[in-house]
């Protein structure tokens, strides 16, 4: 399902030193916050939940957005995507190859900081494992969604930001029903079930989280590939 050349080109083209710094900034801030809060208030379940929630609903989607748009939206913007598309290669292979790079990059920059942050806050290894896996689950879904966005609109970054802030952030916090359709909540459900926290009463449950992630990911990637088959080169205005 992947093409080694596309993976190689994507890595070389998408991730320069500057982008890596952007990707690194938020996770480092989160770690700094975890260390500060822990040293100020000690182990406190409320503070733990606040900090790791910040990791899963802000840091993770932001990094995933930068990671996903780096692998596709930038090539769509400058038109170099044409060199990939003018080839007898299945569009789904192109999408999946880029997706693999996006997930890998996002995971590299989010899994360990969020897991480490959870471990620092909660002071146990189960939290570290739980939040590590939860973050990975979030990477898988977010990257697929943002990749799809990159094929649907030329303003993928703005659309992604709106989605994260309004759906995942605002509505996800206000309306409890949104949790069934919120990647951040799925990640949290898996994380808390493993970390053996006081499981939130309104959690959607780990099984649902994993299945929902799988469904969303497959659907988003399939749609993205189909959109790419209908890719238009902008003609003269």
């Amino acid at each position: 399902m992947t093409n080694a050349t596309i993976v190689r080109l994507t890595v070389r083209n998408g991730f320069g030193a500057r982008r890596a710094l952007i990707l690194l900034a938020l996770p480092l801030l989160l770690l700094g916050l975890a260390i500060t809060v822990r040293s100020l208030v000690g182990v406190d379940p409320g503070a733990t939940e606040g900090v790791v929630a910040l990791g899963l609903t802000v840091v993770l989607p932001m990094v995933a957005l930068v990671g996903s748009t780096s692998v596709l939206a930038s090539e769509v913007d400058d038109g170099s995507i044409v060199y990939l598309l003018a080839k007898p290669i299945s569009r789904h292979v192109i999408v999946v190859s880029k997706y693999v790079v996006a997930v890998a990059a996002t995971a590299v920059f989010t899994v360990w900081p969020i897991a480490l942050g959870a471990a620092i806050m909660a002071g146990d290894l189960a939290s570290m494992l739980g939040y590590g896996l939860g973050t990975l689950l979030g990477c898988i879904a977010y990257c697929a969604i943002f990749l799809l966005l990159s094929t649907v609109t030329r303003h993928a970054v703005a659309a992604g930001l709106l989605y994260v802030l309004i759906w995942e952030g605002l509505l996800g916090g206000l309306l409890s029903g949104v949790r069934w359709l919120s990647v951040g909540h799925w990640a949290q459900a898996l994380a808390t079930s493993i970390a053996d926290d006081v499981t939130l009463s309104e959690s959607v449950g780990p099984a649902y989280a994993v299945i929902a992630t799988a469904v969303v990911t497959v659907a988003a990637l399939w749609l993205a590939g189909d959109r790419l088959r209908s890719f238009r080169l902008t003609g003269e205005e």
Partner: protein
Amino acid sequence: MTELVLEQVSRWYRNVVAVNNVTMRIGPGVTGLLGPNGAGKSTLIALMSGFLAPSSGTVTLDGTPVWRHEQLYRQIGLVPEREAAYDNLTGRQFVTANAELQRLADPDGATARAIATVEMQPVQDRRISTYSKGMRQRIKMASALVHDPAVLLLDEPFNGMDPRQRLHLIDLLRQIGDDGRTVMFSSHILEEVEQVAAHIEVMVAGRHAASGNFGAIRRLMTDRPNRYLIRSDDDRQLAGLLIGDRSCRGVTLRADDGLDVEAVDFGRFAVVLPQLAHSADIRLLEVRPTDESLESVFAYLVGA
């Protein structure tokens, strides 16, 4: 033989028509797609290369629709107008990547051949970001030629080239056309098309305005007067004879020497002129069309 066929193709964006009911067949050899900016050339190239769906009509390559048939890219090489390529790769890495994406058996060998064709060996190991416009154009050509496509489509390939690079590209396109490939390139600059293309398709304001070789396009415009500069050893007498024939409708004596002649019937004029001169024992020193450039044909078509 590979043939690209457009059958009553239109393309509109909301209520703007970019391409209006175009029917053309593009066969082996070099075809120039000529037209001013905004005539719909890029839209047409996008339609032919499968990067745009026709709003109505069909675009087919040997019978297969181009839109949403990615397997056809085995036979199509596209040189897009935009310059962005993979800037942090070297020229050779870029072409090799294209060869690999085409799943060629020997990507390195194909890369070497394509780079040799465009004469980029001396700079093939430099990053594309350090290339001049002409070099970029050539490395894009190499990437489009690497899989030996039957059809090569180029969108404004001469843009930003200096005269030397231009000559090189002209030679290259001719050579590729002579190989029996179907080559189509767009241009708004007339002398480029005139120099390379055996066949010309003219687009004006989204419409297919004319088709044929330069002479054929010219002959289509029978109602259009042709202008000539004629110098002879007796201009004044020749002027009298010419105005006496119905193939001419205007003759002006130049202040220095020579005649400006406006002919209305090219076929007759070409036969009558030497006969008249011979009968009056006038020696023709020079007969030169003063508007026999694509530019004036084009101006005429655009004005029409």
